[in-house]
């Protein structure tokens, strides 16, 4: 396993040449699809996600009419067969997808001003075109941008990133094992213990925290601190994308 042979201790550089606290190249654009209410395309390294929003729209007729004074957020994740290293047709409704969909839906249920749209549904469709780590985090970032494009009011951006507990999977001595790594790619995600953290607001209120691997308790606080800082930086980048788009729209209208 490349990370375990620990060339990390020599130059403190990861496989792709990043340091422990460097994010991958993030590029995003909003309003990419003309036909959807809101859309965005986000690339974080090699993870490429396309997000479209339909809504707020009338509740679907089928099923029990749900009594509520709030809009409901529904998420659908489409993982393309060519997105991963192996070609795999994901079965609809397989548990990992359902869990991710639920996590994203509850995250946005708390952030969007759903009380403004009673009895309606907001459908977030995420197309995963290429997977290379940090899938949940990128989905949250892409969905934020698309929701802003759709014009649905929300209290603040939701930005997310992944953090690993240490540069090696075997926590042996001889390596400076106190550096949590920020923004993992596919290879690092498979080998290291990591968590996904999603925050909202400038003061960094944590909305989403998912950890499915084991790590030492004393590392957790350090990982969260690094994650919060990373999310703050991503929030700044998302804000830049939105402002740039807004500037172009304004120019087209006024200029």
């Amino acid at each position: 396993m490349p990370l375990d042979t620990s060339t990390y201790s020599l130059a403190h550089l990861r496989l792709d040449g990043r340091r422990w606290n460097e994010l991958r190249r993030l590029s995003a654009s909003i309003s990419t699809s003309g036909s959807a209410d809101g859309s965005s395309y986000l690339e974080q390294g090699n993870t490429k996600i396309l997000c479209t929003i339909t809504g707020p729209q009338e509740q679907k007729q089928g099923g029990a009419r749900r009594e509520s004074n709030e809009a409901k957020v529904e998420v659908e994740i489409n993982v393309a067969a060519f997105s991963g290293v192996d070609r795999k047709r994901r079965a609809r409704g397989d548990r990992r997808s359902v869990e991710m969909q639920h996590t994203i839906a509850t995250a946005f249920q708390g952030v969007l001003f759903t009380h403004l749209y009673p009895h309606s549904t907001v459908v977030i469709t995420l197309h995963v075109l290429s997977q290379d780590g940090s899938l949940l985090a990128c989905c949250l970032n892409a969905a934020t941008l698309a929701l802003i494009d759709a014009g649905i009011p929300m209290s603040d951006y939701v930005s997310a990133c992944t953090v690993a507990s240490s540069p090696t999977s075997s926590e042996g001595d001889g390596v400076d094992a106190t550096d949590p790594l920020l923004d993992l790619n596919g290879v690092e995600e498979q080998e290291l213990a990591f968590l996904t953290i999603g925050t909202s607001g400038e003061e960094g209120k944590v909305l989403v925290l998912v950890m499915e691997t084991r790590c030492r308790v004393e590392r957790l606080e350090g990982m969260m601190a690094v994650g919060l800082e990373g999310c703050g930086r991503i929030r700044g980048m998302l804000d830049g994308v939105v402002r740039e788009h807004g500037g172009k729209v304004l120019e087209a209208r006024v200029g």
Partner: protein
Amino acid sequence: MANGTAKPTGLAFSRETFAKLTPGPFLQAHLQQAEPVRANGRSLDAFRTPTINTGSLSHSNGSAVVRIGDTAIVCGVRAEVLLASDIPIPPSDDSSEDEMVEQLGLLVPNVELSTGCSPSHLPGNPPSTLAQALSYRILSLLHTANLINLQDLRIQYTEPPTDEDLPDEGPKVVTKAYWTLYLDVLCIALDGNPFDALWAGVLSALQNTQLPKAWWDPDREMIVCSPLASEATRLQLRHLPIASTFAVFSTASPIKARSEAQSWVLADPDDFEEAVCVETVSVVVTSEDDARESVLKLEKCGGGHVGKVEMGQCVRLAHQRWRDWQGVIGG
């Protein structure tokens, strides 16, 4: 009002309301002008200009993103190895190479429309009849077009000479495996005319496909690939067929005399026009070796307006579009 002599005030509708309430008469009003124009501002035989972006996906062997107006699709090609020993019924020796591509099933297209690309294709549903029909049309067009040489998809192995071989016999070349190309097409946004965009995506993605150098390792008894990009070979397509679809808007109805009906052939229909037209014509043209252009496939279904003359016009327009597309797609 009891006073019947008062003139009723006219209802004033905005353009959008008129289009939503009565789409047929809305389109008809546009087409019946002295200079017929469509609701989207295009002329009758104007196609939308395509934009194609290839090679953007890192995990695929080939990929393409095609945008025609507001219709956008993403196509990814993955190549997987099919061992000759795994083929249940080996094809007979007298089938030609082109037939073998079809018999072995080396090209597998799959069209995914239930992605939320339009309000009529909501995600979470099983493939609709339209998606299944499009998958099949792409598959049959791939086989008819004979785009790929079987030799490009073979992984062969030259057996070392043994003592039992006659001295004059040349080295025996055996096909150990084939490359199977899985073409997954995702529709991101649909604004009418999915077939043209899907076919363009499949074509561009195949053109962009790079197959790694592969060989049979006799010691490990498996196919081994080289990870070097410099040793990969680009897939060569024999020719580049282009699809053009037309829709026919007609005022014909069962209660009117047929001679009174007016019809217009609209090139590259968008979603609004597809909803009011029942007749469609699809033409696929190609030109092998830059010689005579030939028609590869003709499909017409729906009403009864398009006859010999109109079909000839459609084929001419399709040829024109083929020439325009060569600049976009042609290498």
